[in-house]
């Protein structure tokens, strides 16, 4: 959903697993929907980790742990690998996450998050490790993500890092504009290219 980004301060949901693929974020059987109903995808985020085969919530999975919540998902390295399904980004957005923090994202998923106004924040491996430790020690740990200044801060330790976001995408996020809005204004350049 298009929304303007500024400063986000929130508690986090920790998922300290590596190589979380988009098949886990949203299994293929939920890709049959023909609409972009984010609440449907959000309800099925991490479906097979979140629910037992009989449909009951799995008490061992972090999304079912009442201690954790918030608008920030903190995940292990190589988050979003595998399938290009944008439904994974819709599920993350639909569940209510605005930011995903990891030390490494898969390319296609990272773009999909950005195109859905979910901000992927890349931090160093030791920042990530420390953040997992902070959250484990105190689930009320908050993180501040400052988009204008491109900084992420672990408020439990005060440690802060800058993160990468290109100037174009930053402008889009802060003004709730998407790439299609931009491309539709470029028709002259496209036609000129085609005549080359």
């Amino acid at each position: 959903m298009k929304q303007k980004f500024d400063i986000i301060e929130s508690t986090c949901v920790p998922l300290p697993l590596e190589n979380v693929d988009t098949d886990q974020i949203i299994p293929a059987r939920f890709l049959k929907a023909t609409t972009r109903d984010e609440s449907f995808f959000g309800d099925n985020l991490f479906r097979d980790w979140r629910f037992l085969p009989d449909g009951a919530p799995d008490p061992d999975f972090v999304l079912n742990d009442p201690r954790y919540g918030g608008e920030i998902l903190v995940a292990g390295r190589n988050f979003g690998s595998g399938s290009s399904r944008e439904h994974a980004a819709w599920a993350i957005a639909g569940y209510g996450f605005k930011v995903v923090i990891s030390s490494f994202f898969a390319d296609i998923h990272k773009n999909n998050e950005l195109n859905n106004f979910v901000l992927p924040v890349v931090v160093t491996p030791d920042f990530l490790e420390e953040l997992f430790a902070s959250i484990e020690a105190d689930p009320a740990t908050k993180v501040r993500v400052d988009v204008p200044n491109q900084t992420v801060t672990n408020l439990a330790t005060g440690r802060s890092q800058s993160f990468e976001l290109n100037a174009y995408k930053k402008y889009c996020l802060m003004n709730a504009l998407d790439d299609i809005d931009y491309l539709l204004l470029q028709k002259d350049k496209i036609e000129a290219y085609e005549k080359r």
Partner: protein
Amino acid sequence: MNTLFDKIWDAHVVQHVEGGPDQLYIDRLYCHEVTSPQAFDGLRERGIRCLRPEKIICMPDHNTPTEGQEKPIEDPVSKKQVDALAANAAEFGLTHYGMMDPDNGIIHVVGPEKGLSLPGMTIVCGDSHTSTHGAVGAVAFGIGTSEVEMVMASQCILQQKPKSMRIRIEGTLGRGVTAKDMALFLMSKLTTSGATGYFVEYAGSAVRALSMEGRLTLCNLSIEMGARGGFIAPDDITFAYLQGRDYAPKGEDWDKAVAAWKQLRSDDDAIFDREIVFDAAEIAPMLTYGTNPGMGIAITGYLPTLDDIPAEAHASFCKSLKYMGFRPGDMLLGKPVDYVFLGACTNGRIEDFRAFASIAAGRQKAPGVVAWLVPGSWKVRRQIEEEGLDKILEAAGFEIRQPGCSACLAMNPDKVPAGKYCVSTSNRNFEGRQGPGSRTLLASPLTAAAAAVTGFITDPRVLL
């Protein structure tokens, strides 16, 4: 001193967006039924049409059943999605090869075999295995649905230019070692994120020696190392494969095209951001044991132990092995197999069926093994029949099904039940990929055939 990747990419840059990505012109957009409906909705909401409808090709493949395609799809949700693609293609004036159309099949099998994917092109699809088309010497990559909508609206995509990597595999592959083993070997060495941020050019004598089918398999799996795409510079093998295909240039145009395509190569002094060399002789038939495609070993090898795995990866490793029902240090040879799947955009081509049949010939499917043999397209199925492979396979107790993505991701009725082991020629062994609770072991068509006729994990080299 440019790489081929630079040459193709740079030739398609409409403009560089200030402080941001490139606006890249796209020559071909493929659409399947799963990742396109929301893009069409987006166009309708914005009140716009496709800018260049003639450059867009649609076909359903993910939901299609592999038997009874002549009847309506039973699953109403699958049917709705397949019908939506047909209706959207009609509304927006796009070419559509529907179910049962003689040109239908898996989009990544059909594109090259119809000559829709050509050297030097930029090709995208809302599907990570779009990298397959790189085998013809194109820059091809998977995109999300918002990006599909972007291309429909403007024939362009905004994209950061990836870095370039060259992977050279020199020497000769051993007997019974295929392009699939080559790819699984690369993933086991590089991990599933080793090539993230890169576009890969495959080179070296072992890559050059691959047939087009083998090259398509290798490029298909680029994404499983994290690479956005992978390609092979076009050569005489490429041109021989493409000549005469429906959409390939004809007559004088063909000669001109080939002359231009011969220029599509990295300069001798081109500098890659990363370059890796492997010896083809090191590669054995490979098999995966875990829940990502990088978790592969030589079929005669042993699973890693915890000592082999970095501490921060222990949780993921143990979760994976628990899911698969294996223990660290296990050997896979001799383990019983419940299902075998031959097919997918990875290994659903004619050469894959020839390989499978070469082991099945004169043998019998093991009792208790359920085998799904799913051609990648109707054209592949017709060729199977023309070559008499269907007779050989039927005599061995196998049947050839109708084309589609099938058990690769189980969006159609072909689902592996929970807890069952499937030796699969597809591309992903993620948890639940072939159905909730399914356990996938990725392998080549030869290894799949060896499992199908013996009922357990078997080194295909002993059956050749």
